């Protein structure tokens, strides 16, 4: 049965997408690493306009979000969608077209941001002409996914596919709302409201469902056991769909946007605990009786660690949205620590799990276990240090601001933490290069042994 399911997959396509995604990951986080140096050594690369602090910041953030996460989400979906629908991809040429289009978008965005062209909206920095192409790309992807799912041969519609379908719809709506309205029409506080709506939904309605789709697919396969409860999957999905879109305004608490909008955002942020715990109960339930896999299987290792971080992120999130917490941590490094826990700690780890599961199938050879351990531990330890120092730095600076300490003094006080962040970041970046090398090596060896046969 395994063999026959594999035959639905276009291996070259998945391989190209994933390898490209990891290359982008290495580039985007190397930029993050250079950026982190500027925090404690401001003279570093500071007289070249194209490498100015804000420009590198935008390249890093957009790079990890759109070039790494989304390329990888596309790539992994070309693997699990055909398998779950027992159907070849509806439009393979479209998937290749998307590949070139998406990489063109990423490169154009990087060049534009380095030239200083940006819209001035957090997370929607990419210039408007590129946004049009992104929408075209999402449409191509949607045709491909809906085409495959609606002509499927498998009767059951597994929960991963729900998340995927919903995410495609949400992405399209959210992207259009967030990039056009606050840029052309919504002025002032209204713009802030829609910007908050958009940039929380990038994480909540685009990255989260696509990441959970992967986790829901990888975990049962890797643990070799069906998902714990179908009912919990349904509850998790609908509570997420209903609660998440209301939380956006929690990025502008204490701003002049109406207080009731802020209150809705806070209440819903706290309610978000429900979908998260439901999903996690489901994951940990699935692991029941299979915990030995944690030491044997790389995908399980990554999924479980990712789940733990997901749980922590979504425990921290509601806490952060409370007004009393906002007073201290808003505008500080704390939030940056939170962003890394969500996007690296949870969703990047889910993708890594998928890579360890998928790469052997598409390249024909298992990934090296020792290099895999290096990837896992360097990333885990590096990230843990980075998160701790960012939270500490955020709290310290927040408290010092309240104490009315002159601004620069508060900067000097947290600079030692920024130095540690750079070293922790270097560990993370090197873990990504280990993964890249591992993928490249496995693929090469597999090709060589195929030739030898």
């Amino acid at each position: 049965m395994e063999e026959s399911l594999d035959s639905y997959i276009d291996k070259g396509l998945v391989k190209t997408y994933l390898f490209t995604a990891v290359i982008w990951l290495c580039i985007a986080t190397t930029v993050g690493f250079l950026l982190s140096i500027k925090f404690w050594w401001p003279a570093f690369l500071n007289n070249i306009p194209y490498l100015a602090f804000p420009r590198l910041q935008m390249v890093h953030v957009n790079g990890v979000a759109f070039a790494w996460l989304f390329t990888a989400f596309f790539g992994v979906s070309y693997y699990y969608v055909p398998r779950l629908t027992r159907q070849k991809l509806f439009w393979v040429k479209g998937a290749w077209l998307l590949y070139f289009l998406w990489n063109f978008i990423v490169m154009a965005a990087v060049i534009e941001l380095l030239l200083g062209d940006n819209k001035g909206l957090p997370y929607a920095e990419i210039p408007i002409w590129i946004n049009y192409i992104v929408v075209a790309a999402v449409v191509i992807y949607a045709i491909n996914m809906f085409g495959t799912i609606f002509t499927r041969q498998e009767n059951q519609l597994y929960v991963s596919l729900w998340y995927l379908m919903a995410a495609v719809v949400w992405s399209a709506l959210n992207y259009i709302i967030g990039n056009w309205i606050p840029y052309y029409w919504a002025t002032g506080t209204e713009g802030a409201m829609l910007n908050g709506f958009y940039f929380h939904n990038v994480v909540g309605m685009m990255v989260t469902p696509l990441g959970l789709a992967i986790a829901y697919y990888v975990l049962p396969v890797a643990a070799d056991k069906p998902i714990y409860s179908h009912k919990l999957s349904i509850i998790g999905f609908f509570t997420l769909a209903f609660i998440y879109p209301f939380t956006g305004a929690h990025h502008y608490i204490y701003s002049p946007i109406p207080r009731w909008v802020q209150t809705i955002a806070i209440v819903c942020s706290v309610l978000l605990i429900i979908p998260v715990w439901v999903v996690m109960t489901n994951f940990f339930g699935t692991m029941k009786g299979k915990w030995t896999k944690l030491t044997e299987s790389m995908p399980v290792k990554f999924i479980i660690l990712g789940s733990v971080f997901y749980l922590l992120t979504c425990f921290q999130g509601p806490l952060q949205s409370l007004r009393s917490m906002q007073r201290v941590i808003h505008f500080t490094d704390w939030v940056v620590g939170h962003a890394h826990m969500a996007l690296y700690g949870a969703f990047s780890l889910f993708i890594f799990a998928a890579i360890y599961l998928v790469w052997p199938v598409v390249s024909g050879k298992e990934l090296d276990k020792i290099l895999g351990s290096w990837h896992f531990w360097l990333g885990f330890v590096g990230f843990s240090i980075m998160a701790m120092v960012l939270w500490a730095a955020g709290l310290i600076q927040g408290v010092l601001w309240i104490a009315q300490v002159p601004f620069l003094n508060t900067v000097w006080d947290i600079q030692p933490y920024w130095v540690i962040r750079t070293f922790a970041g270097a560990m993370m970046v090197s873990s990504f290069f280990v993964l890249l090398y591992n993928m490249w090596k496995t693929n090469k060896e597999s090709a060589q042994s195929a030739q030898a046969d």
Partner: protein
Amino acid sequence: MKRSGNVILIAGFGFFLLAFVIIGIIPWLQPKQQTHTIINLKGKPEPVHELTGLAAKGRLVYIHEGCWVCHTQFVRPVSGEKQYYGPVAEAGTYNYQLPMLMGKRRIGPDLSDEGGKHTNDWQYAHLYDPTSVSPGTIMQPFPWLFHGSAAKPTKRAVELVAYLQTLGTDVAEGTGYKSYWQYRAAQVSAVSAVVKNSPQVVKEGMKIFNANCQACHGIKGGGNGPAAASLKPKPWDFTSGKWIKKYGSTDKDIYTRIAQGVPHTAMPEWATTLKPNQIWEVLYYIKTFSQKKVA
């Protein structure tokens, strides 16, 4: 089974658009969200001006150079921000802005009320090389907005500074002052000797001095604190008992110096950080440095 797919699509669209309408569209229709009026420093309603000319162009430079990545323009009513930065953000301030630049991260201080806080020359020097006026700063320098020196700004630098000088000036409209800072300086210097000299006051002043001033002025007031080495001019030496001539040497003159800072030097404006009584306390304390020498 095709049905479940449709349910998901409908639920997906439905909930999302519902949220968009409730927290996106309905607030938009509230008149308060479209107002172009704010409450000025004297508590009176005052219309906000739409940016024009140089300042409007400067706003584009501000976006292009990514100043918004490090600076917010959003003062909250909590966490002592009003005291540190200035008046709390009001809806009217923003409603001509497209896109809005409230920002999300303070790697540098809030700039809502930057207008009138520093001179144009200070702003040029700061943009050209921030460390020249703020030693130890991590702000990105922008030499590419200049023709080789802070004295020769390009058109874009001129526009940018024109924009910075408009920030937060609307609240001063109708009060007789040009900016929040002018209003504040006037408030501060209007304070006469509210605090009388006494040993207790001097003791308080010592605490304030050791926390805020000794890094530059030295623990014994000799102008040779750890941060002094890189400064030009050097922090003032209080042990001589002399004061900078052009600023006068009465208590009130010295008070104004501390409150407003010394232009074109590292000496900060302490009125933004210290309360008037604290300034008096530290003033009486720094005067003791020269007395000790005499005694």
